[in-house]
C-alpha cells in the first residue's frame, strides 16, 4: 500500500473495475474511511460436535487480498473467530452456524477462519438472517485429502447490507464445494474466491440468487489456478423479478503459466422474469498455458423459454403453474445440491413466497 493514499485505496470511487457495478451510496458507511467499523464475533455454533471447535484468537489471514472491504474488515478485527475441524474427523451432521451480534444500526466487521484438518470430511452451513451492515471475511484452509461442503444462505432482512469474501485454499487431493444461496438483503456482494496449495485438488462452486424489487445481489467468483493439475467447476444461476432488481455475476478464472493440467468450466444463467430488472454476467477466462485438460465458460441471460412452457402446457398444465414449475426447476437444480432436506424445502418455500409477492 505504500505510496498510495490509504484513504483513496480503501474508498472506491465507483470507477474501479471491482466496484463499477456496486451502488456505493447504499453501503451504509462500510467503505467510508471516516467511519470506524465495529469489531464483532458474529458466528455462533448452533450445537457442539465432536472434532469441531470454535474460538476467538489473534490470527493472521491465510491469504492476500486487494478487496477494499476485506482490507477494512481485517484492520478492524483484532480477534478473528477460528473454527477447527480436526484431522481425520468425519462430521456426519452438518455443522450449523448462525449469526449473532449483528445490529444493522452501525457498520460492523467480522472475520472467521476455518481450518479443515487432513482427511477430515464435513458439511458446514452458515445461515445469515436478520439485520446487518457488515464487512466480513471467511477464509478456509483445507489440508491434504480433506473435503468440505460449505453452504452459505443469505436470507437477510430487507435492509441488510453485506460485503463478504469467502476465500478457500485447497490442499493436495482436497475438495472444496460451496453452495451460495442469496435471496434476502438490500445489497449483498460476495466474493467466492479460490486458490490451490496442492495438486489433485478440486473447487466446485455453485450458487443461486433471486433478486426482487430494488435488491442488488452481486457475486464475484475468482478461481486462481496457481498450481498444476487442479480442477474447478463454477455453476451459478439467478433470477430477477420486479422493478430495479439487479444482479451482477463475475466469473474470473485465471490459469497461470505453471498451472498445466488445469480442468475448468464455468457457467452462469440468468432468468429475467419481468421488465425493469437488469442482470450483468461477465465470465472471464485468462489462460497463460495451453497444456491444460480443458477450459470453458458459458453465460446466458434471457426470458422464459417459450418451448418449455409450450411443452408443459401441451400436457394440460395451466400457464401459471407451468411458469412456476419452470422457475422452481431453474432454482432446484442448484438448491438440490445442498442435500439437507429441510434446508432445501425452506429455500424453495421462500422462493415461492417471493414469487407470490411479485405476482409471478
Amino acid at each position, binding site marked *: 500500500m505504500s505510496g498510495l493514499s490509504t484513504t483513496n485505496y480503501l474508498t472506491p470511487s465507483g470507477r474501479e473495475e471491482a466496484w463499477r457495478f456496486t451502488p456505493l451510496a447504499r453501503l451504509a458507511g462500510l467503505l467510508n474511511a471516516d467511519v470506524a467499523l465495529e469489531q464483532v464475533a458474529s458466528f455462533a455454533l448452533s450445537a457442539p460436535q465432536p472434532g469441531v471447535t470454535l474460538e476467538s484468537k489473534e490470527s493472521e489471514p491465510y491469504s492476500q487480498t486487494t478487496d477494499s472491504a476485506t482490507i477494512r474488515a481485517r484492520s478492524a478485527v483484532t480477534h478473528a473467530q477460528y473454527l477447527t475441524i480436526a484431522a481425520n474427523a468425519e462430521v456426519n451432521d452438518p455443522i450449523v452456524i448462525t449469526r449473532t451480534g449483528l445490529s444493522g444500526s452501525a457498520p460492523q466487521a467480522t472475520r472467521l477462519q476455518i481450518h479443515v484438518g487432513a482427511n477430515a470430511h464435513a458439511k458446514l452451513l452458515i445461515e445469515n438472517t436478520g439485520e446487518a451492515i457488515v464487512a466480513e471475511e471467511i477464509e478456509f484452509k483445507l489440508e491434504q485429502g480433506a473435503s468440505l461442503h460449505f453452504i452459505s444462505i443469505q436470507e437477510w432482512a430487507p435492509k441488510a447490507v453485506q460485503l463478504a469474501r469467502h476465500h478457500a485454499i485447497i490442499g493436495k487431493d482436497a475438495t472444496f464445494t460451496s453452495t451460495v444461496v442469496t435471496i434476502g438483503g438490500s445489497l449483498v456482494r460476495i466474493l467466492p474466491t479460490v486458490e490451490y496449495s496442492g495438486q489433485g485438488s478440486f473447487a466446485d462452486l455453485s450458487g443461486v440468487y433471486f433478486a426482487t424489487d430494488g435488491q442488488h445481489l452481486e457475486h464475484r467468483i475468482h478461481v486462481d489456478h496457481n498450481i498444476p493439475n487442479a480442477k474447478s467447476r463454477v455453476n451459478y444461476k439467478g433470477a430477477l423479478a420486479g422493478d430495479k432488481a439487479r444482479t451482477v455475476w463475475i466469473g474470473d478464472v485465471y490459469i497461470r503459466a505453471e498451472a498445466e493440467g488445469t480442468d475448468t468450466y464455468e457457467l452462469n444463467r440468468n432468468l429475467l422474469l419481468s421488465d425493469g430488472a437488469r442482470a450483468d454476467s461477465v465470465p472471464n477466462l485468462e489462460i497463460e498455458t495451453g497444456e491444460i485438460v480443458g477450459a470453458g465458460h458459458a453465460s446466458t441471460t434471457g426470458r422464459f423459454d417459450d*418451448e418449455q412452457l409450450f*411443452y*408443459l*402446457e*401441451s400436457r*394440460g398444465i395451466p*400457464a401459471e403453474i407451468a411458469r412456476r414449475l419452470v422457475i422452481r426447476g431453474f432454482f432446484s437444480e442448484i438448491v438440490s445440491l445442498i442435500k439437507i432436506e429441510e434446508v432445501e424445502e425452506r429455500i424453495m418455500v421462500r422462493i415461492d413466497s417471493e414469487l407470490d409477492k411479485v405476482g409471478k
Partner: protein
Amino acid sequence: MSTLEIKNLQVSVATEEGFKEILKGVDLTLKSGETHAIMGPNGSGKSTLAYSIAGHPKYTITGGSVTLDGADVLEMTVDERARAGLFLAMQYPVEVPGVSVTNFLRTAATAIRGEAPKVRTWVGEVKEAMSALSMDPAFAERSVNEGFSGGEKKRHEILQLELLKPKFAILDETDSGLDVDALKIVSEGVNRVKGNSDLGIMLITHYTRILRYIKPDFVHVFAAGRIVEEGGPELADKLEENGYAEYVTN
C-alpha cells in the same frame, strides 16, 4: 365416440421475409378408434399441422377451423386443448431442467383429470406404465427430457400418452431416430393404449417403417401444405415403392 374435424385449415408462420403460408387448406376428419397416417416429404407442412392443432404460438391460423366434438379448438389455450383430450407426441421433446419426471407427470395428470391422482394407485400406475415401456425406474427422478437419448425421449412421450389418456393423439415423427428395438417398444406402447381405449391417432411420418407396427386405417399423402391423395393401407405400400416423387412438383 369423438370426432376431431379439421376444415380448410390455413396456417402461416412469420419469417424474416414476412408471413409465409405453410398449410393451404387442410381437410381431415378423425373419429375415435381410427388411425390415420399422414405421410409426406420433408417440408410439406406435416409438423405445422401437428403444432397448429396443439396451439403452438409460432403458427398463425389464417383460415379454416378445428373442432373437437363441435367445440372450437382454435379458440382454446394450449392447456385447454390438452384438457379437452388432445395430445401431441413431439418429434423433439423439450428439456425442462430441474423438473423431475415424477413431478411433471403428476402435475400433468392432476391438470388433465381435474384432481390429484390418489398417491397409492398413482405410484403403481406410473411404475407399471414405465415397466411396459422398458423404462428404468430411475427415470422418474431425472429432469424432464434432460440428457435423455432420442429413444428415451420418445418412450417418455408414449408414457405420457398412457397416463394422460387423451381422446386423440398426434404422433409427430415418433419413429424418427429410433432403432428397431426402440421402435418396437414405442409402437407396442401406442397399440396398447389404443387397445385399452378408444384412442384416435394421427400418425405423422416420412417413412413407412412404423406402419409395420402401427396399422393405419387410412393413409393421407401430404404435399405442399395440403392433402393430395387419400386411401387405405395399400397407399402406404405404393409410397414405399415409388416414394413421393409424383406428388412433388418443382
